[in-house]
């Protein structure tokens, strides 16, 4: 495949179409994220002011009034819904998501950037690992479906698949932290260690994040495995596979070159979607294992009525999913020659 092939006119049109679609989808998504919190009947700022008044911080009526106005302005809740909407977009396009409420005056962007590495590190590794393992096992299980071990693998996947994630994580926590205490119960690294690029720190992070990582891999392997298996079992009966088998092509070659390459396509799309999901974090994982990532941040945001932070996390996640879906769409021609040619 030469460069000219890739950048043919048809492909440029394809790219432009996908980028346009992505922008529309992000726009609609952000609008929904803007509207939903504003439909809720509770006003976070009045709540905050009531909290302050009851704790007896200051009760000069003028001061309270001034404070109230400043707060409404700061959180983009000033004026009618239309005015709020315009000022929201103005700020958003400047890359300003406002200050956080519970960690005032730290900007929302700052908080998100600080939590992002934990979540991305944990979820990127586990998503890729479980995707690779799940698809390999699924392909084998689909192709060698008459073998005994594939039945067991499939049964195991079917048994793990429906267990709510919390319960799976909890079982691991009990087994490996209480019954056989070989892993630490909480935290992303040993307490007292300084964050930085040292080997000691890296090892500590690896040790602490092994169990949460394992729980995520175990839970998500099943879905990939079962998806791949059913894709493969559909492809097996295609004429070209039967032809290759009759023609004496090695079974391993048939599986890797004839079947897996075809079956992989929908799985690649799925991977794109799940990578996008990284940006909203694995809330329960981070909650159960005490990791200071995006999921933990959004939990704290919600329990503190932190409007701007919730908006911030949601927007990051919307953009993240849409962009990684776009990214996968753009990579698609490399995997699928049919898209490349038409």
């Amino acid at each position, binding site marked *: 495949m030469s460069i000219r092939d890739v950048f043919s006119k048809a492909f440029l049109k394809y790219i432009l179409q996908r980028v346009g*679609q992505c922008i*529309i*989808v*992000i726009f*609609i*998504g952000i609008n*929904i*994220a803007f509207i*939903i*919190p504003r439909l*809720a*009947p*509770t006003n976070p700022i009045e709540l905050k002011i009531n909290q302050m008044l009851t704790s007896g911080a200051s009760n000069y009526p003028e001061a309270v009034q001034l404070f109230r106005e400043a707060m409404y302005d700061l959180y983009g809740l000033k004026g009618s819904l239309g005015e709020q909407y315009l000022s929201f977009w103005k700020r958003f396009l400047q890359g300003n998501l406002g200050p956080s409420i519970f960690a005032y005056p730290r900007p929302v962007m700052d908080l998100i950037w600080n939590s992002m590495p934990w979540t991305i590190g944990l979820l990127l590794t586990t998503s890729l690992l479980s995707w690779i393992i799940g698809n390999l096992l699924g392909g084998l299980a689909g192709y060698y479906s008459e073998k005994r071990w594939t039945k067991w693998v499939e*049964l195991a996947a*079917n*048994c793990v*698949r*429906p*267990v*709510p*994630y*919390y*319960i799976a994580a*909890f*079982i691991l926590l*009990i087994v490996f932290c*209480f019954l056989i205490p070989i892993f630490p119960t909480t935290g992303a690294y040993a307490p007292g260690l300084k964050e930085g690029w040292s080997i000691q720190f890296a090892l500590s992070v690896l040790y602490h994040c092994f169990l949460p990582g394992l729980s995520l891999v175990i839970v998500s392997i099943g879905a990939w495995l079962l998806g791949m298996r059913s894709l493969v079992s*559909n492809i097996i*009966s295609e004429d070209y596979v039967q032809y290759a088998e009759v023609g004496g092509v090695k079974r391993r070659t048939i599986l890797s070159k004839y079947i897996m390459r075809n079956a992989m396509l929908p799985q690649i799309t799925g991977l794109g*979607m799940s990578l*996008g999901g990284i*940006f*909203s974090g694995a*809330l*329960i994982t981070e*909650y159960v294992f005490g990791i200071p990532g995006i*999921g933990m941040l*959004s*939990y704290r*945001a*919600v*329990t503190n*009525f932190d409007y701007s932070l*919730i908006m911030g*996390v*949601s927007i990051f*996640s*919307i953009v993240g*999913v*849409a962009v990684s*879906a776009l990214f996968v769409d753009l990579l698609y021609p490399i995997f699928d020659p049919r898209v490349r040619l038409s």
Partner: protein
Amino acid sequence: MRKAFAGLWKTSGSFRFGIISLVFAVFMVVMSFFSPFKPMESFAVTPDLRPSFTHLFGTNSRGQDLFWQMTFALRNSLMFGVLTAILSRIIAIWVGMYSGYKGGFIDKAMMSVNDSFVIIPVLPILLLLNFLLREKMNWFYMALMMALLGWAYDARLIRSQVMSLKVRIFSDTAVFCGMPTLRIIYKEHLPYVLPIIFATTINNLLWSIGMEVTLSILGLTNINVPTIGVVFFWANQHQALISGVWWWVAVPVVVTVFVFTGLYLLSVSLNEYIDPRTRLRMKGGAV
């Protein structure tokens, strides 16, 4: 029907296990209506009793009998999951089939709305709504909300299936034979779409129950209505493991894993059975 049941029972271990756990789940749900206690009545029995013949699953630190707690929890969680699945299926099937059949501009417009719903982060929105509406929240509203947020991906799956069926030769044959469109949809296409609808229903049900557990653990649902998540929430609140009341945690874990794994295996074996391709293969025909 009876023959199909007997055949499945004989050949499929998943089906047998599934039926057993279904019977158990139905038994628990029915028992919940005969409970001697009110759902959240506390200190009705001696607290912290180990599982025994008088208290089958033991009692917890709040003085509740865990067996009766689990009957309520299972009933509410299942009702919530089924309702969510049904409501979101109505949207997903309609959008998927309509969009797939119509194609063109309508399809494009519907799919950009659909894709926006796919990428909306469900968890932050659910967290926020649950937090803001906590007192007014009940499982019916929550099911409605989850249904509104959880249909989009499945609609896309159904649509892609419909689109590929539309161009198959048997569809053209049916059209040329003068079969009316609705009949083609129900007689010719639905059997092929049904396995997907069925599989997505089960997945959606499991997803919604998992979400409910997540939200309850965080204390963001109505914690005075027992569900599976709420049982965990109270066990965590009383630090059941540390105070040695391990059965408070073990019981919901075992019951949940048993019931949901069973129901899932049941759905898998049924799904294989209703898929026309599997039956063709079993009869030795070409697919």
